[in-house]
């Protein structure tokens, strides 16, 4: 038996197909196709959680995605735990483990429930008022306590072992929702040959047909018709049917995000399958058929377990075969709830009474109720309920007051009417319009190529819905260029037309009352909280929402928003549309981070770029560091060496013998064309006309505001061809910068730019023995100092492959940079490495490179400069062409602040204690004894231990720095103040002779 409340013959599940699951340690039976909610109800379990703020016992309110209360944790294993799952949408699978949330030590006895007794102190906005003082208490007392008490479920502590997939899709017509309206629209669209995608959040299509058993379409039972229609649609080549797929976000130009739950309902999912799939659909036209959501009644103690929406009870009975009670009361302002009572009565359930707040219920349902022998109390209200962990009674009174009558019940169904689901329409930036007659917000002005049909468009009548949907399907297909060969017709019939509905507080929960009449179950917001917010001066619905947190829970107020709005409007004495409606935002229902992050995690989070020599360097023992997306060899430790020792050895070896370095990550741009030199004249501060082919020059590039943007060595290969290098990090933006000026400011110049960063492998050989290392490998280039001086470039061959060989240095030593086509990089590296080893040289990494360049005072743009540094500030004023009449930044450089005295200038710092290494980023002051806050006059940009200097060295930006050379400044640190002497920027080989060796 799959639960004592399963009604034989009722529902659509197969009694023989059972599954077992565990809820809070207790094992229960379920049927295949059950949701956790239906299975718990079948077993008579109504209490499933505790409310967020007051820890009140809570049950299942709905049977669908709008569920505010029944949030559970679902666990497959230690890594696959999902908190805050709505029990009404999670299918049961065999062996499933379900836990309740927000209770301790147990669901039935929850210590936190003391909050309910303290409720008078927890009025809306109490956080804002209560925890203001004493000041220190927030950090040490209030915040930790509130954090411990807050939240619902517990997030898993292990990495998610599931994977998620992503798919882009294009279609002519996307249909959101597969109820009567959605299926009819999809059918009409599909028949025209248009490419159609139809999605529905539920496991089976049908929408309201899940509960409304009275519907027939073309003489067929509605739900059966829906399944048949979906099956025949799925067979068509031009149609994709996606069940268990929620359209959660509607973005610009009909771009709709869908979340397909692929394995969430399976007991033992194939681990090859993704858990969820993100669909990013671009649709020419969208048909929104998202139906309507039933509202609850707002009355005193309307939150006890067993009190639920009428349509939910109908779904549990007609689809799952579960009776939600044996003695059921109904409280409604709307005809639709009557049909729930009728269905239950016919299934043998006793209906205690239908309490209708209206004096005049619909004629049809009233007559039917009488014939079924159900007592109808028109013009009455439920003014209170009883029962601790489940509702046991309702107190009913005549509208306007008087004595109340207590009626014993074990479930109470409620309906205040239906709220059209305009979420998708509103997310599409369409403007809703308020319909005074039916008190509903309906689609008004459309902003995108979409159309709403059925209940979400305010269409109540079944046949009208079908016709509207068929017409929409055809119309939207026509707009996409498809036409129907024949006109589709479908005939629908149902039992009753529904009238009625109300928004706001019901009898006994009006303005003068202090009862707990909940409007937002999940955030424990009552009608009186909205009134308090208005009294405290919140007049905008957006402020009321934030003050009370109404509609801010995970259900985003699907039940509560209209009630909150109506109460606010009543309190403010304004009409509902004058108070406004809060904005609907994505996602419609919660989407897992896994789906959104998708493949972009771990190694796939960001592309990894490796140089051609990466594998060799790895084999040679390199430790790598991340530089942007690049992996760069950081240092090459030998047995027993730590990083410090390895770097010191590398630095010493380069200056004593030589070192080889992978410089392939440097940005490289080939600038070609008759106007190439003129173009570079405009892009760089330097002058390029005078640079002869075969020579190189260090160039500085500014932004138009005059600040240093990038630097690098440029070699002139021919009159019309330059080999430009940029910083590693600047490669892409420099290319963009050049293209921008070439295309839009200097389009008259005949120049081509080609990024060549990944086409060249670059090996730097630096040190006294650099020439000796490469000499035997190079053909066709005279390497002598006279024929090939510093800052030259030659083309020839190395190891038999073509090379652009640069004579240049970023260490101050004799240096060469070998450029070879990327594919030859490893072979050439291997050959050079072998030569280097034989001569006592070594490979060095980026850490040694940084130290070696700092020893010479060579700056790194982006480390020693920060976007506010001029060439002069960096002692690079010599590189600015004084006779030039234009280059990017020429005017910016002359701005008053850029030529003013006292600018921060790059200088060297020598700590008084040579063993102390400064921290990069540390602030510099002139007087260490001044009171806080001190006047900071600069900061350290680079700081290293220099084994070659036998002491620490540093570069720093200091206000008026060049004039302070020789002076003592101070670097205050948390534990000590470090005295430093300002120096020039060159710490080794000040004469610069070694570079020409």
């Amino acid at each position, binding site marked *: 038996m799959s639960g004592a409340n399963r009604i034989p013959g009722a529902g659509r599940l197969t009694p023989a197909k059972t599954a077992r699951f565990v809820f809070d340690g207790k094992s229960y039976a379920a049927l295949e196709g059950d949701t956790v909610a239906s299975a718990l109800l079948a077993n008579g379990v109504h209490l499933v959680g505790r409310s967020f703020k007051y820890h009140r016992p809570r049950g299942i309110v709905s049977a669908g995605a709008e569920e505010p209360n029944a949030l559970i944790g679902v666990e497959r294993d230690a890594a696959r735990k999902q908190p805050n799952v709505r029990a009404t949408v999670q299918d049961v699978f065999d062996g499933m483990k379900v836990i309740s949330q927000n209770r301790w030590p147990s669901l039935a006895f929850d210590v936190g429930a003391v909050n309910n007794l303290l409720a008078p102190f927890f009025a809306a906005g109490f956080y804002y008022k209560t925890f203001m003082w004493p000041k220190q208490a927030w950090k040490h007392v209030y915040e930790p306590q509130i954090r411990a008490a807050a939240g619902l479920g517990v997030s898993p502590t292990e990495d998610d072992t599931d994977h998620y997939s992503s798919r882009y899709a294009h279609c002519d017509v996307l249909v959101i929702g597969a109820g009567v309206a959605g299926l009819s629209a999809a059918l009409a669209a599909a028949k025209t040959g248009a490419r159609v995608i139809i999605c529905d959040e539920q496991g089976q299509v049908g929408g309201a047909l899940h509960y409304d058993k009275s519907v027939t379409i073309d003489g067929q039972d509605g739900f059966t018709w829906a399944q048949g229609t979906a099956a025949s649609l799925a067979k068509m080549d031009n149609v994709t049917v996606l069940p268990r797929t929620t359209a959660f976000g509607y973005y610009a*130009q009909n771009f709709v995000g869908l979340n397909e739950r692929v394995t969430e309902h399976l007991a033992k999912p194939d681990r090859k399958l993704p858990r969820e799939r993100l669909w990013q659909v671009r649709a020419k036209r969208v048909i929104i058929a998202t139906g309507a959501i039933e509202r609850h009644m707002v009355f005193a103690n309307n939150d006890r377990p067993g009190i639920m929406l009428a349509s939910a009870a109908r779904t549990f009975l007609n689809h799952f075969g579960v009776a939600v009670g044996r003695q059921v009361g109904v409280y409604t302002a709307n005809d639709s709830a009557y049909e729930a009572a009728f269905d239950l009565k016919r299934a043998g359930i006793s209906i205690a009474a239908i309490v209708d707040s209206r004096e005049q219920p619909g004629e049809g349902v009233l007559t039917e109720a009488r014939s079924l022998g159900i007592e109808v109390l028109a013009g009455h209200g439920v003014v209170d309920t009883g029962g601790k962990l489940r509702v046991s009674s309702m107190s009913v009174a005549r509208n306007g007051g008087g004595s109340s009558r207590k009626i014993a019940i074990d479930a109470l169904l409620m309906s205040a009417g239906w709220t059209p689901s305009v979420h998708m329409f509103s997310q599409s930036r369409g403007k809703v319009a308020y319909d005074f007659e039916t008190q509903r917000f309906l689609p008004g002005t459309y902003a995108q190529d979409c159309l709403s049909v059925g209940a979400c468009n305010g269409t109540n009548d079944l046949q009208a819905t079908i016709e509207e949907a068929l017409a929409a399907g055809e119309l939207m297909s026509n707009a996409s260029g498809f036409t129907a060969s024949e006109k589709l017709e479908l005939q629908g019939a149902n039992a009753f037309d529904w009238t009625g509905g109300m928004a706001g507080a019901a009898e006994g929960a009006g303005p003068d009352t202090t009862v707990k009449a909940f409007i937002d179950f999940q955030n424990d917001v009552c009608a009186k909280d909205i009134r308090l917010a208005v009294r405290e001066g919140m007049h*905008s619905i957006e402020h009321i929402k934030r003050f009370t947190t109404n509609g801010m829970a995970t259900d985003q107020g699907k039940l509560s928003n209209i009630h909150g709005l109506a109460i606010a409007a009543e309190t403010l004495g304004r009409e509902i549309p004058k108070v*406004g409606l809060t904005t609907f935002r994505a996602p419609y229902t919660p989407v897992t981070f896994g789906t959104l992050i998708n493949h972009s995690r771990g190694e796939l989070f960001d592309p990894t770029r490796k140089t051609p020599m990466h594998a060799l360097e790895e084999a040679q023992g390199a430790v790598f560091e991340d530089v942007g997306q690049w992996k760069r060899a950081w240092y090459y430790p030998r047995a027993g060496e730590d990083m410090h020792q390895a770097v010191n050895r590398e630095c010493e070896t380069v200056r004593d013998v030589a070192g080889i370095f992978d410089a392939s990550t440097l940005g490289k741009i080939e600038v070609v064309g008759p106007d190439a030199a003129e173009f570079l004249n405009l892009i760089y501060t330097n002058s390029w006309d005078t640079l002869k082919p075969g020579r190189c020059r260090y160039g500085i590039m500014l932004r138009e505001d005059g600040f240093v943007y990038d630097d690098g060595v440029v070699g002139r290969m021919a009159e019309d061809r330059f080999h430009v290098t940029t910083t590693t990090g600047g490669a892409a933006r420099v290319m963009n910068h050049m293209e921008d000026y070439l295309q839009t400011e200097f389009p008259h110049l005949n120049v081509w730019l080609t990024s060549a960063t990944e086409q060249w492998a670059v090996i730097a050989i630096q040190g006294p023995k650099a020439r000796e290392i490469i000499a035997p490998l190079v053909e066709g280039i005279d390497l002598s100092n006279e024929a090939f001086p510093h800052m030259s470039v030659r083309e020839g061959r190395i190891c038999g492959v073509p090379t652009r060989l640069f004579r240049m240095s970023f260490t101050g030593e004799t240096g060469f940079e070998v450029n070879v086509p990327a594919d030859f990089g490893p072979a050439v590296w291997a050959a050079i490495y072998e030569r280097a080893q034989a001569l006592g040289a070594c490979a060095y990494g980026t850490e040694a490179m940084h130290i070696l360049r700092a020893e010479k005072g060579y700056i790194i743009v982006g480390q020693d400069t920060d976007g506010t540094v001029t060439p002069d500030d960096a002692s690079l004023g010599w590189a600015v062409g004084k006779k030039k009449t234009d280059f990017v930044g020429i005017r910016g450089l002359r701005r008053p602040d850029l030529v003013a005295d006292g600018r921060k200038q790059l200088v060297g710092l020598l700590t008084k204690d040579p063993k102390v290494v400064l921290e990069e980023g540390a602030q510099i002051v002139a007087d260490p004894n001044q009171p806080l806050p001190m006047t900071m006059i600069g900061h350290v940009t680079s700081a290293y231990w220099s084994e070659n200097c036998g002491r620490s060295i540093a570069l720093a930006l200091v206000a008026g720095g060049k004039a302070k050379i020789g002076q003592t400044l101070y670097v205050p640190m948390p534990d000590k103040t470090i005295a430093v002497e300002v120096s020039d920027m060159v710490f080794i080989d000040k004469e610069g002779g070694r570079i020409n060796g």
Partner: protein
Amino acid sequence: MLLIYCPYCEEERSELEFRQAGDAHIARPTNMTEMTDEDFEAFFFLRDNVKGLTFERWRHLNGCGRFFNAARDTVSDKFLTTYKAGLPRPDLGTLRPATEATVETYEATESDAK
């Protein structure tokens, strides 16, 4: 994610391929060195940050690589038209959309909701 029509590729491509590049129709003066500080300030630093119709530069970065201009509505995010760099501003009499104020702002919610 927007679809953007590249006037060089002559087709709509995904926003992922494009990069916004600031305001359009701001020509770099040829007499840079003769500009006053005020003129330079106006040229380089001052921008309007328009609510509504704006002209801006885009680059089809992960496509043809070309810079082009676009007329876009900053309220609705809609592109009214795109056109090649160097062309004058198009006549917008026919392009200006009937944009309605959003209801997301406090001012809007305080007044009549649409």
